[in-house]
C-alpha cells in the first residue's frame, strides 16, 4: 500500500509542479484539476509540511471485521500520542464498524479530559451514493456525524473545496470527518493560481455562495451543489433567479450565511443526497425557524433529499432514489408557488 500511495502522491506532485512553473508568457487561464488530484496534492503538501502527519487506512478490505476497528483505533491512539493521522476509509459505510472509535474515542475525548487531550485526526473517504453498489455501500453519513459534539464535519464539492478544506482539516487540532464523493473524484474544475498555492486553506464553518440570486435560496453540499447550479441555469431561462449556497461545512453549520440569504430571497429549498428524516435539511429548517430569518420566509422550506429507503441496486431504481435536477426544479417552483 505504501508503494502505491507514493506513486499516487508522486503523480499528484507532478500535476502540481506543472502549473507552478512561472512562465510570463503563459496564459493566465486557470488550470483544470480533478477533485482526486486536488486531494492528492493537498495530502502531499501537508505530509511534507509537518512530519507528524501520516496516512493510514483501508485499501483492500481483508476478511476480519475487527480490522476496521483496529486501524481506526490505532489512528486515534496515535493522535492522542501527538501525531496527526489521516485515517482513510474505503467508503464511510465501513466507518460504521469503526464508529465507536470515531465517536467515543475521537470526538468526545477533548471534552471528557477537560481540554487536556486533543485528538488532531482527520477521517476521510467517499460518502453517499456511488453507482450500482446497492444498499450497504451507498449511505450518506453527513447527518450521522454532524449530530455529534466534538466532531467537525466537512463536505467539499469541487476541487478547490477539496484542497482547501483538506488542508484546514489536517491543520485543525480537532477530529474532522471529511466526506468526499466517489462520483466527484474524476470531475475536473478550474482552479485559480491562488487556490493552488501551498498555504491555500478554506476556513471550516464558512459556506460559500456559488451563485448570487434574488428569488430563492438553494442550500446544498457535496455533489448536489452541482445539481443545484444546473437547476439554477435551467430556471434562469424561465426568469427564476436562484441563489446557490455551497455549505462546505456541515458541522458547524454556517447559519449566518443561510439566514442572510433567506432574508434577501424569502424562499428556501435545501438539497442533499442523504435520507430525509433527521437530516441536514431538517437541521437547516430548524435553525432557520429558530432564528430571525423565519420572519422573512414567504413560504415553508422544502427539503429535497434522497428517498427514504435503503439504496436499491437496479439502475432505474437507483437513479430515482437520489435527487435529480428535475426534482430540484419542481421543488423551487412549488416553493415559489409558480
Amino acid at each position, binding site marked *: 500500500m505504501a508503494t502505491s500511495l507514493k506513486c499516487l502522491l508522486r503523480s499528484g506532485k507532478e500535476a502540481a509542479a506543472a502549473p507552478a512553473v512561472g512562465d510570463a508568457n503563459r496564459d493566465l487561464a486557470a488550470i483544470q484539476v480533478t477533485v482526486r488530484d486536488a486531494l492528492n496534492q493537498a495530502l502531499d503538501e501537508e505530509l511534507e509540511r509537518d512530519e507528524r502527519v501520516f496516512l493510514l487506512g483501508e485499501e483492500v*478490505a*481483508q*476478511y*476480519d*471485521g*475487527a*480490522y*476496521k476497528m483496529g486501524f481506526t483505533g490505532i489512528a486515534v491512539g496515535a493522535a492522542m500520542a501527538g501525531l496527526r493521522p489521516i485515517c482513510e476509509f474505503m467508503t464511510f*459505510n*465501513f466507518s*460504521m*464498524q469503526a464508529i465507536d472509535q470515531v465517536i467515543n474515542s475521537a470526538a468526545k475525548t477533548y471534552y471528557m479530559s477537560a481540554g487536556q487531550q486533543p485528538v488532531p485526526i482527520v477521517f476521510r473517504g467517499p460518502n453517499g451514493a*456511488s*453507482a*450500482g*453498489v*446497492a*444498499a*450497504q*455501500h451507498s449511505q450518506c453519513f453527513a447527518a450521522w456525524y454532524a449530530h455529534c459534539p466534538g466532531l467537525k464535519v466537512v463536505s467539499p464539492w469541487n476541487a478547490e473545496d477539496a484542497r482547501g478544506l483538506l488542508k484546514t482539516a489536517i491543520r485543525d487540532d480537532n477530529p474532522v470527518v471529511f466526506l468526499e464523493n466517489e462520483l466527484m473524484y474524476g470531475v475536473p474544475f478550474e482552479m485559480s493560481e491562488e487556490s493552488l498555492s501551498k498555504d491555500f486553506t478554506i476556513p471550516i464553518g464558512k459556506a460559500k455562495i456559488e451563485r448570487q440570486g434574488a428569488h430563492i435560496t438553494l442550500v446544498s453540499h457535496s455533489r448536489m451543489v452541482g445539481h443545484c447550479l444546473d437547476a439554477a441555469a435551467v430556471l434562469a431561462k424561465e426568469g427564476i433567479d436562484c441563489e446557490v449556497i455551497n455549505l462546505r461545512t456541515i458541522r458547524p453549520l454556517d447559519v449566518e450565511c443561510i439566514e442572510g440569504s433567506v432574508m434577501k430571497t424569502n424562499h428556501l429549498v435545501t438539497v442533499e443526497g442523504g435520507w430525509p428524516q433527521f437530516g441536514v435539511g431538517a437541521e437547516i429548517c430548524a435553525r432557520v425557524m429558530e432564528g430571525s430569518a423565519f420572519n422573512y420566509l414567504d413560504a415553508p422550506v422544502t427539503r429535497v433529499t434522497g428517498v427514504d429507503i*435503503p439504496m*436499491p*441496486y*437496479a*439502475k*432505474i*431504481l437507483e437513479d430515482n432514489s437520489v435527487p435529480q435536477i428535475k426534482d430540484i426544479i419542481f421543488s423551487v417552483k412549488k416553493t415559489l408557488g409558480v
Partner: protein
Amino acid sequence: EGKMLTNISTVLRACAQRNIQVANFIRPFFFTCLKKSDVFKLDEAPATEVVMTRDEGLQYYRTMQTMRRMELKADQLYKQKIIRGFCHLYDGQEACAVGIEASIKPTDHLITAYRAHGYTLTRGGTVKEIMAELTGRRGGIAKGKGGSMHMYCKNFYGGNGIVGAQVGCRSLSV
C-alpha cells in the same frame, strides 16, 4: 474439487471396466479420509466415514458445473457492464458450497460474506433468479433491489457487503 472429480471418474471407470450395466449400478463410494475430531461435552463425534452414491456424486457434479457456467457468464456480463457495482464471483469455489450443502439439511441456517452466488444456488435459488438479480430485473431473487451481494433464500441469510459483518450475525456462518 479436483479430488472429488478424480474420485467420481474412478468410480465410473471402475463400473465400465467391470462391464456392469451402469443404470443398475448403485455401489456407493466411501469417503474415509475424514480426520477424527476431539470432542468437548459431546456424546458423539462427527462421522469419520461418509457414503456418497453414484447418483449423489453426479448430482453434485451437475450443480458444480451449473454454478461454474453461471459464474463465467456473470463474469462476461460484468465486463460488458450489464452487471453494475460489485460482482464477486464463485467460479473455483463450487465444491465448497456443494460440499457444505451435502452435509447440512435445508432447515439448517447459513450465512456468508459477499461471495454469495454459489450459496444462493445451493440453498434454493434458481439460475434465472440469480442472473435476473445481477442484472437488476424485477424477476430477481431480491426483485433487483439487492444486487450481487444481497441475495436471500429460506434459511439463507445472504450475502453481506460489509467485511466481517456476517460473523456476528448468526451462529452458523460460512
